[in-house]
């Protein structure tokens, strides 16, 4: 277990620097593309949407693809329960995100980019469009050829999965594709495409501004940089907080809990439930428990059965239905825990449900079905009594 570095607050994502003149972009497009890619790789930046793929490698793969029709997509389909950090970026510092997208477009050689915004954030469109208009004006002055378009989601959680997102952008049902091929090889319209989370682009922009050396001072070896956390539930400090990665969950709870924290759900419904007894041994970061930033706190007045039931209802509704393990699995898990609660099934049936969730993990087509087991097994195994009685 890596040592905890305590809880360190940071203020760079929303920090003072946000240029409507896109000065970082201006500076970056005079640099060698390879040099920028190397910086992003050396920074150790990993995707902030939850999956944590190394950003620099993604850009490198896309840049290495032949052809000159390539795309950059910003995944602003923030739909994981308990996540709202991208909302704050989109509302407060969209320039930083747009600048990061433009730098990415420059290094991979794309002239067209998109922001895929969840339908629930429709209210942001006027302000975002205004900023995009400004960006296009600045880009013209720099002689930099890039058009960024807004595309809207329509209330489908699975579209946050990058290949489902691409399907949706192509005007189809948002059903995930098989991977490989990955979007960096065959993405939007079958062309090389980088899909990154909102916060990831902000980080990439930040690395171009402050340099790799400054950036890697934040976080730990395996989890470089800071991270926005969406903190909600039984906490007196609900909101978006920027913290260095690599902290112990116990430090986190000491700061954000209500002195009665029973469990923390790390990473949303698709993430893991950590019970009190494991707060001290759980590290938040890629060396321990990675997260897209959703942290839901539950105190001892909460029924973990209700929590799990809520998550399963969510998955059952949002499963795209394309593959059987996920479509049927989500339904059966939900019906299963209800049956045990009503004593229509014996407690031992839980073991069968756990097996089912393991099957879903390996047999489901995309991250949605694969991750149901995370919350299911971590809640069931830690709170067996609450499931039964």
């Amino acid at each position, binding site marked *: 277990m890596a040592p905890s570095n305590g809880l360190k607050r940071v203020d760079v994502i929303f920090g003072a620097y946000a240029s409507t003149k896109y000065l970082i972009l201006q500076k970056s497009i005079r640099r060698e593309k390879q040099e920028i890619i190397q910086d992003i790789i050396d920074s150790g930046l990993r995707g902030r949407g939850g999956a944590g793929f190394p950003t620099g490698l993604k850009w490198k793969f896309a840049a290495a693809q032949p052809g000159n029709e390539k795309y950059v997509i910003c995944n602003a389909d923030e739909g994981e329960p308990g996540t*709202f950090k991208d909302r704050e970026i989109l509302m407060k510092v969209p320039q930083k995100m747009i600048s990061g997208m433009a730098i990415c477009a420059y290094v991979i050689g794309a002239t067209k980019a998109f922001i895929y915004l969840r339908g629930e954030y429709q*209210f942001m469109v006027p302000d975002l469009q205004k900023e995009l208009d400004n960006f296009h004006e600045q880009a013209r002055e720099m002689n930099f050829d890039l058009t960024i378009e807004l595309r809207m989601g329509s*209330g*489908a959680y699975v579209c946050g999965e990058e290949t489902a997102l691409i399907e*949706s952008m192509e*005007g189809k*049902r*948002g059903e995930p594709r098989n991977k490989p091929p990955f979007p960096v090889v065959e993405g939007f319209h079958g062309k090389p495409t980088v899909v990154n989370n909102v916060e990831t682009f902000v980080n990439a922009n930040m690395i171009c501004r402050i340099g790799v050396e400054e950036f890697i001072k934040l976080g730990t070896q395996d989890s470089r940089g800071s991270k926005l956390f969406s903190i*909600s539930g039984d906490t007196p400090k609900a909101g978006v907080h920027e913290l260095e990665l690599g902290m112990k969950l116990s430090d986190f709870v000491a700061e954000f809990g209500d002195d009665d924290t029973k469990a923390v759900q790390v990473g949303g419904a698709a993430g893991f439930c950590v019970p009190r007894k494991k707060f001290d041994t759980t590290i938040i970061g890629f060396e321990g428990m990675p997260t897209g930033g959703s942290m839901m706190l539950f105190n001892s007045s909460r029924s973990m059965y209700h929590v799990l039931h*809520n998550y399963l209802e969510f998955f059952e509704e949002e499963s795209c239905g394309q593959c059987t393990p996920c479509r049927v699995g989500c339904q059966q898990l939900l019906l299963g825990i209800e049956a045990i609660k009503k004593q229509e099934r014996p407690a031992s049936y839980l073991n069968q449900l756990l097996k089912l969730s393991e099957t879903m993990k390996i047999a489901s087509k995309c991250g949605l079905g694969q991750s149901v087991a995370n919350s299911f097994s971590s809640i069931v195994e830690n709170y067996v009594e609450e499931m039964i009685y």
Partner: protein
Amino acid sequence: MNQIQPYVRSLADKYGRERECLLPILQEIVATEHVLSQDAMVEVARELNLSAAEVYGTASFYSFLNTEPYGKYVIRVCKSIVAEMKGKKEIVDKLCDILKIKVGETTPNGKFTLLETNDIGWSDQEPSMLINEKPYTYLTPEKIVQIIAEYQANGKSNNHQQIN
């Protein structure tokens, strides 16, 4: 409906006739008509040279593209676990009480539709809801009375909920 044909054509002129233009077109129809009627879908299919089944199949995938008529104002109350913990039930009960409908129903005058929806991105400020695209947060039953009264009076609430 006679005017649906020129309307859909104008949307296709605006967004284009490629497959990727389908969602923006359907989204705008729902925003203005509050429903994606069969006639509209058939017309979109014709304009984009797709089968009506393709259009319906795509539309029915997305929860915001309703093929059943909704009211002028669609209320979507967040039903995430955090919303539940913060009193979602009282909010929904109050809405049902005022509007005299159940979740999933539309008022007889066609003004309001009441729905529950998955996380809308305001877990730090629950309970929350959307009325059409506009978010309302830190809801209380008292606030609900006020918000709905404003929609009933002016058609649209002027009380811009502050979103920080």
